[in-house]
């Protein structure tokens, strides 16, 4: 990776961080619990790293570790999105 790549990535990181701050500030306190489980699910994006590791790997220990990582990330992702949906389904207004 060239220095340019690092700089571009840094730009992206900074922009995304500020964007994140703005987006979250507007979330109603009522929704903080599902917000936490949703962002927990999004943090399982590290699954992408595990996929590349396992899929490209040749050695046994890489595949073993990679598969463990995939299992862990999948628990995180699937569980997170499902529980968030379960929580959000429950909110209703007075009739």
């Amino acid at each position, binding site marked *: 990776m060239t220095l340019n790549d690092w700089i571009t990535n840094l730009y992206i990181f900074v922009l995304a961080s500020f964007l994140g*701050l703005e987006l979250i500030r507007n979330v109603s306190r009522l929704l903080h619990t599902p917000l936490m489980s949703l*962002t927990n699910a*999004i943090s399982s994006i590290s699954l*992408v790293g*595990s996929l590349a590791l396992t899929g490209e790997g040749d050695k046994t220990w890489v595949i073993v570790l990679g598969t463990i990582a995939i299992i*862990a990330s999948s628990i995180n992702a699937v569980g997170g999105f499902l529980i968030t949906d379960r929580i959000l389904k429950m909110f209703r207004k007075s009739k």
Partner: protein
Amino acid sequence: MENIIQFVYIASASLFILSLKWMSEIKTSRWGNWAGTAGMALAILATLLKPEIHGYLWIAIGIVIGASIGTPMAMLMPMTAVPQRTALSHAFGALAAGIVGSAEYFLHGSNLSMPQRIVLCIEVLLGFLTFTGSLLAFGKLQEIIPTRPILYPGRNLVSLSVFAFSLFLIAYLVIKGGSHPFLFGSIVCLSLLFGILLVLPIGGADMPTVISILNAYAGLSSSFMGFLLNNKLLIIAGALDGSSGLILSIQMCKAMNRSFTNVLFGGVGQVLEVADPSRDGKIVKSLSPKEASILFEAAKKVVVVPGYGMAAAQAQHVVKELTDVLENRNIEVKFAIHPVAGRMPGHMNVLLAEADVPYDKLVEMEEINPLFPETDIVLVVGANDITNPAARKNPGSPLYGMPILDVDKAKQILFIKRSMSTGFAGIDNDLFYSPKTIMLFGDAKKVLNELLISINSN
């Protein structure tokens, strides 16, 4: 192909951003979750398109096993366990991040550039400390481990030393270059240890803030993985997650009127006053639910203050039934939600929603406080510290400065508690001794039921 993957990643990132945007309102919130799911699905698909990937079998097996564990975890656990489930989920995600970083090091250690070594080490440090920290948080919330903060003299020094040492090792590794498996392994062990040391001295009541912070660390870890692997989607998603965790932690600290550092290093939540000597000679008025039900005859406005006790007793459904009964008698019922009621921000809202209480009855602290003076009866169900006027009046109290619900301004207060035991802050509540207060002792579910039956038969 690489370009196609990048375009799909961009779509995925956009979906994550929309996901958070749509979470700002209840109306669009479910779309928010769907957007997030779609974003993740696209990210997975795009990654699988990478030409370097030749083995799909284990990926499939991994995903299937993971999904089959994650699904029951989400669908079967009771709503009261949402905080601990979130903590456990964090642990898994962080573990994955740590593993990926470590594997990358052992595979390519000698080929990494210095900046790559830096981000890899930070990513692994964050990943593993979040792993053990989250596991510990899960243990405390699930009460497998004692919830009181576990303090020992010099604890801050120990934690900081471990942290400093790991940074030192990282600096050494980064500057030295090459591949040093033992050194790396030590860094991993130190990170695991540091996670435990970080969370151990924090009391069960502060766990929500800790979970938020750990969420931020997990996000940062993903971002750093993105820097390492030159994956912009990881960077973006991680940054979004990190900011979210940071903001929620700050908001929670503000709601408790304690600083960040106080929560992390303060060891609050321990019993500071063992037995309040001033309690001797003070009497509380208590009634049976049947006797108390008469008070509701003349009431027009009632506010219910839910707390962790309601969650523990699983009383939210009875609360709903009581609300219905009161409303049938033309009594207005509102719910006062304090930002740190329960074990997680928004915890009470979720439980009440589960009990089918419409969300427009749930009023936040700032909006409901001005309404207390005109409230006839306040029904406190399993809450304590959030109503304690000592937070306003008593500079010596550990609660001092914390914004509270102005329950003491209402005309009559009914406290449902199992006993005179203290709440999380370990101190006595002055409100119990007020002439306006009546205690209803017993399990929340039972008391509310009896109240319900009595009111109906009046």
